[in-house]
């Protein structure tokens, strides 16, 4: 079959380039902005996602994993007695000041456990053995800390809240939404350091017995710990994410960005397709004179919109992927998943088809008699 849509589109290459550029711009804007947003949000829950805990017990109204509030550490004893619980341990999460060799102080986020290995924290160890943490004033520091703390080596010492700790290993991927570098140390060491952590914990991590239902066990824990909040892993990750999306205005910001991207795409595609439709009005009249219907013309416009969507998405997608290494050099993670890519593609197709529909009304009224006009 001859595709008048494709031929007309390619016949006017400049207009086609403008249409595709508009779509590609919109796609790039949405992919990169949303990718950055999702990359940022991934940091907000990365420890929740990677820790081997099915249920998190928190203090009342803790907004997210980074902003922990402490509660009595003995809560863990009651939790261990709940039916369906295989294991429960305290986890202290605390912002502490770390002194750099220059004398300057920087904040870090300390994750403290007695037995890290059982909770798969940290989940990506570069150098060192996490089991050695319990032997004294030792820390494992995430490599991403170099951006804030400068270069460091295993064997170096750093002062945390005035006490010297030896760096005995490094980790990868551990991050906080607040960008404070993550440091792992023994639970008792952390309790001694922080004034507000004496006989306190920030969380109780819970591992379920095989076959136990997380929601049912969470309900049982709630019953014996009424002054705490209890979340399944998924609910706690969702709460942490939602806090940052809503409280920081990031969600609104992303919404506006996506809206603007879509608006630009719709305007460019609608404008170019409409102009093209008007310029080809006599041809559409000819299609009708030959016995074609409005649907034949709608199909032409729809096909043009679809081509613009596919080519524009491919271009915008390639551009976004190309920008990832550059963004990574700026420590910005553009998270692009196949599912998100598919969603943006479907959105792009709908956007372009919607834009094409603006021309439908114009062509619907074409009188085939105009073919007789000179």
């Amino acid at each position, binding site marked *: *079959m*001859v595709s*008048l849509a494709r*031929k*007309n589109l*390619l*016949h006017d290459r400049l207009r086609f380039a403008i249409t595709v550029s508009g779509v590609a711009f919109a796609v790039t804007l949405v992919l990169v902005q949303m990718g950055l947003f999702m990359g940022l949000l991934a940091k907000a829950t990365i420890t929740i996602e990677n820790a081997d805990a099915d249920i998190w017990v928190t203090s009342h109204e803790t907004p997210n994993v980074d902003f922990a509030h402490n509660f009595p550490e003995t809560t863990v004893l009651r939790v261990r007695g709940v039916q369906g619980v295989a294991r429960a341990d305290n986890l202290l999460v605390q912002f502490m000041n770390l002194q750099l060799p220059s004398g300057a102080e920087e904040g870090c986020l300390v994750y403290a456990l007695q037995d890290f290995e059982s909770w798969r924290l940290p989940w990506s160890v570069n150098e060192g053995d996490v089991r050695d943490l319990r032997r004294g004033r030792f820390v494992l520091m995430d490599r991403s800390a170099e951006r804030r703390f400068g270069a460091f080596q295993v064997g170096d010492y750093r002062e945390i809240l005035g006490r010297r700790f030896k760096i005995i290993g490094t980790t990868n991927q551990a991050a906080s939404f607040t960008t404070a570098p993550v440091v792992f140390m023994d639970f008792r060491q952390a309790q001694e350091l922080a004034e507000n952590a004496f006989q306190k914990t920030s969380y109780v991590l819970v591992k379920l017995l095989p076959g136990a239902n997380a929601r049912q066990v969470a309900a049982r824990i709630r019953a014996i710990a009424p002054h705490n909040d209890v979340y399944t892993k998924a609910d706690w990750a969702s709460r942490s994410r939602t806090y940052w999306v809503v409280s920081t205005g990031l969600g609104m910001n992303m919404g506006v960005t996506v809206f603007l991207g879509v608006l630009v795409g719709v305007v460019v595609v609608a404008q170019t397709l409409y102009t093209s439709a008007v310029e080809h009005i*006599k*041809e559409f009249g*000819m*299609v*009708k*004179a*030959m*016995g*074609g*219907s409005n649907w*034949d013309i709608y199909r032409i416009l729809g096909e043009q919109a679809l081509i613009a969507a596919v080519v524009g998405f491919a271009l915008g997608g390639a551009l976004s992927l190309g920008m990832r290494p550059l963004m990574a050099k700026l420590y910005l993670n553009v998270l692009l998943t196949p599912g998100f890519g598919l969603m943006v593609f479907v959105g792009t197709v709908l956007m372009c088809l919607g834009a094409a529909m603006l021309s439908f009304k114009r062509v619907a009224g074409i009188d*085939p*008699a105009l*073919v*007789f006009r*000179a």
Partner: protein
Amino acid sequence: MSETVLEVRDVVKVFEEGAQRVEVLKGVSLRVAPGEVLALEGPSGSGKTTLLSIMGCILSPTSGAVRVDGEVVSRGDVRQLREVRRRSIGFVFQQYNLFPALTALENVEYALNVKGFAARAARHEAQQTLERVGLGDRLHFLPRDLSGGQKQRVAIARALAGAPSVLLADEPTANLDTQVGLQVLELFRDLAKQEGKGLVIVTHDPKVRQFADRVEGMRDGRLAA
């Protein structure tokens, strides 16, 4: 085959614009037989093109009857008008009205696609039709690369494609020089006759007369006596 491929009877066409009422056709009747070439002459504003539009089922008459290929065309039934155009009418225009982005072959093939021909059959018939009008060596040329006469041949091939029983031409030689115009008319007439199609040519051009079996004049919305 029916003795008449096209018939209009007592056709009246009135255009209304606000309070203004213009009667363009005032009771026109004529018939076209298969293989007959009818030239329709008349000054501008005499109603020739309006009559051609009604015969081509592009417009409906205000009153009167139109019969194409034996089928009575109902007034105002847009779907039937479109169907009759698709099946039974082929048009040729003064401005050719070719699709500039399509090659000669694709112009004819696309018309066949609109008429419901499948891809391969359409391509085969388009190629054959273009060869019949002497453009076998110009199949893949865009209209911009063809001369006026060649463009009009593509338009004729497009009109012939799909075997319509009626061919309607609006000033087909107006944009061609005399020699080329004569060649195009001769080709058009011969093909129409060979295939038994009724051909109506609306024209100002006196040289069309020599190719017509019958000449009708129009004046003020009526056929001249």
